[in-house]
């Protein structure tokens, strides 16, 4: 039998069995996902229940809660977790407030050409390196930076917010803003103009139309965007390192310290477990709000 005949027969056999096609196309990525991603995650979580011998530095393979009890009882970890969580919430709220008017403007007000231009400008910073953007902000905020320079020229007392939590909040809000605008913009786009006209036709002014029609309809987009801003802030450790002050450690910094400086991988794993737990709770709440219907 010729090669061609065989190929055709194999093709026909696949055509008759859609499930076989599904298995064959899905199994490589599925295998990849299971082995590389899930398996390593499980290994990490299991490690969280081990300890390190403080003398030899070797991992002691003995089940214990001690890492977790240490995180819960030592106030330094409590404040690190709280700081990370509050920052993630503050950045998320800030980005929602900034993104809503911008996304509305983009989706419902500007002309097609302006929309493309603005979307391009919005997405352009994503091509730039994360580090470059953080260093740019250091240049803006530091004592000899752009902002105090402008302020002194205007005769205002220069602000000193570099290396504070406020600086971190500004930089994070800037960094993740596009991730909030894009899903909200998408949600606004999906609201037909006729709904806004209908609301106005039925007597509603702009505020009621926003509150009763637009907001409920773009809420899934807001939640989707907040998953990005929340999780990206939660997992970051470079911005706190570069522009945070003396008391600006995040969970990520604590993990970095115990894994790379302290050599205590089990404790780092336990800290990572906390991050994952917070994110899981957040995703459950988001699911509750119907965020995944909009993705």
């Amino acid at each position, binding site marked *: 039998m010729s090669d061609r005949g065989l190929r055709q027969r194999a093709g026909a056999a696949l055509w008759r069995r859609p499930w076989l096609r599904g298995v064959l196309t899905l199994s490589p990525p599925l295998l990849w996902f299971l082995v590389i991603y899930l398996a390593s995650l499980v290994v990490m979580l299991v490690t969280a229940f081990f300890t390190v011998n403080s003398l030899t530095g070797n991992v002691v393979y003995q089940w214990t809660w001690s890492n977790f009890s240490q995180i819960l009882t030592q106030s330094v970890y409590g404040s690190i977790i709280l700081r990370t969580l509050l920052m993630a919430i503050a950045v998320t709220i800030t980005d929602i407030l900034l993104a809503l008017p911008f996304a509305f403007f983009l989706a419902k007000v500007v002309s097609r050409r302006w929309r493309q231009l603005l979307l391009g400008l919005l997405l352009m910073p994503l091509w730039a390196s994360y580090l470059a953007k953080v260093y740019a902000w250091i240049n803006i905020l530091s004592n000899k930076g752009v902002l105090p320079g402008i302020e002194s020229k205007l005769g205002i007392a220069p602000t000193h917010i570099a290396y504070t939590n406020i600086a971190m909040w500004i930089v994070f809000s800037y960094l993740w803003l596009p991730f909030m605008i894009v899903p909200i913009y998408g949600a606004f786009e999906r609201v037909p103009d*006729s*709904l806004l*006209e*209908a*609301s*106005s*036709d*039925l*007597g509603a002014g702009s505020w009621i139309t926003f509150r009763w029609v637009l907001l409920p309809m773009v809420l899934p987009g807001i939640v989707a965007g907040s998953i990005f801003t929340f999780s990206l802030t939660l997992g970051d450790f470079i911005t706190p390192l570069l522009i945070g002050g003396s008391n600006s450690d995040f969970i990520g910094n604590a993990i970095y310290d115990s894994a790379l400086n302290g050599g205590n991988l089990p404790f780092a794993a336990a800290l990572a477990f906390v991050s994952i737990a917070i994110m899981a709770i957040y995703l459950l709440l988001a699911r509750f709000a119907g965020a995944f219907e909009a993705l």
Partner: protein
Amino acid sequence: MSSLTVPVSPSTASQDGIVLRGVSKHFGDHAAVREVDLDIARGEFFTMLGPSGSGKTTLLRLIAGFEVPDAGSISLRGVDVTSKPPYQRGVNTVFQDYALFPHFTVAGNVAYGLRVRKVARSERDSRVRAALEMVRMTEFADRKPAQLSGGQRQRVALARAIVNEPEVLLLDEPLGALDLKLRQEMQVELKRIQRQIGITFIYVTHDQEEALTMSDRLAVFRDGQIEQIGHPVDVYEHPATEFVAGFVGTSNVIMTQHGRAVLRPEKVELSTGPVSSDREGAAGHVADVAYLGMVTRYTVQLGDGRLITAVQQNRSTDGEHGRFAPGDVVTASWNVADAFPLKTTSATEIQ
């Protein structure tokens, strides 16, 4: 404000209805509506008919307040509303795509306008119930729009508008998305509701049959202007221009001693004998036959080469009896009075 139950007879006093004077609207270089004057009486079922792009929907949106005219004025019951926003006009709109709020139930959608106007809950509930009853949607009150069929959404959109007891209801091709059977059902329904609540309906459609069926009066639009305005019978039997004759029904344009005239196909009779003395006509042969069920449409080529369309009722159940076949020699004749002379200076001929 009109009441939901007392029928109001159409009044000709323009002070009472809608008055448009010199209304124009441009989109860029394109003139969508050009210096339209229009009087619509209170309680009237008024239809704006025309092909797409003829300006009828733009004019409706101008009356609704979604667009502001470049020139001219719009007044409602003697009050100038030209620059007022939609929610200060006492008009409500039924949108072509229904524009129901997807996150509200049927009852929530209908209650929207009342909630906005802070109508007390008990009154709100009873008015929503009455409106849903009127459109026969009571049992669907708790459904979401996504769970309804096209015809049901249409009814909800109607209830959402009339529950506010507007002075004027604007309907933008409301039946356009429905299939034929449902459309005919809703036509009857709309007329019933309009009679029941007695408010002015301004109805936009491109469907000439719908316009003829439902309207008290209709205006035929072309290129942003009104080509003809009148009662359905008037417009159909006495089209002012060739455009109207062609858009509202089909028609033959023939030459008479007085110039060009419109002759409706159903007024043309086909026979085998000579033309009787009280009629006008010509001999020819059947070029094409189309059996349409209720009627048969013939295209007859006359002796001088011109084509004329004739529609004959199929009165006999015998498919062949009294019918002609392609190639048959026939005489096409009509009453002289049935050939309606066209205005020589119609917009059609100017262009």
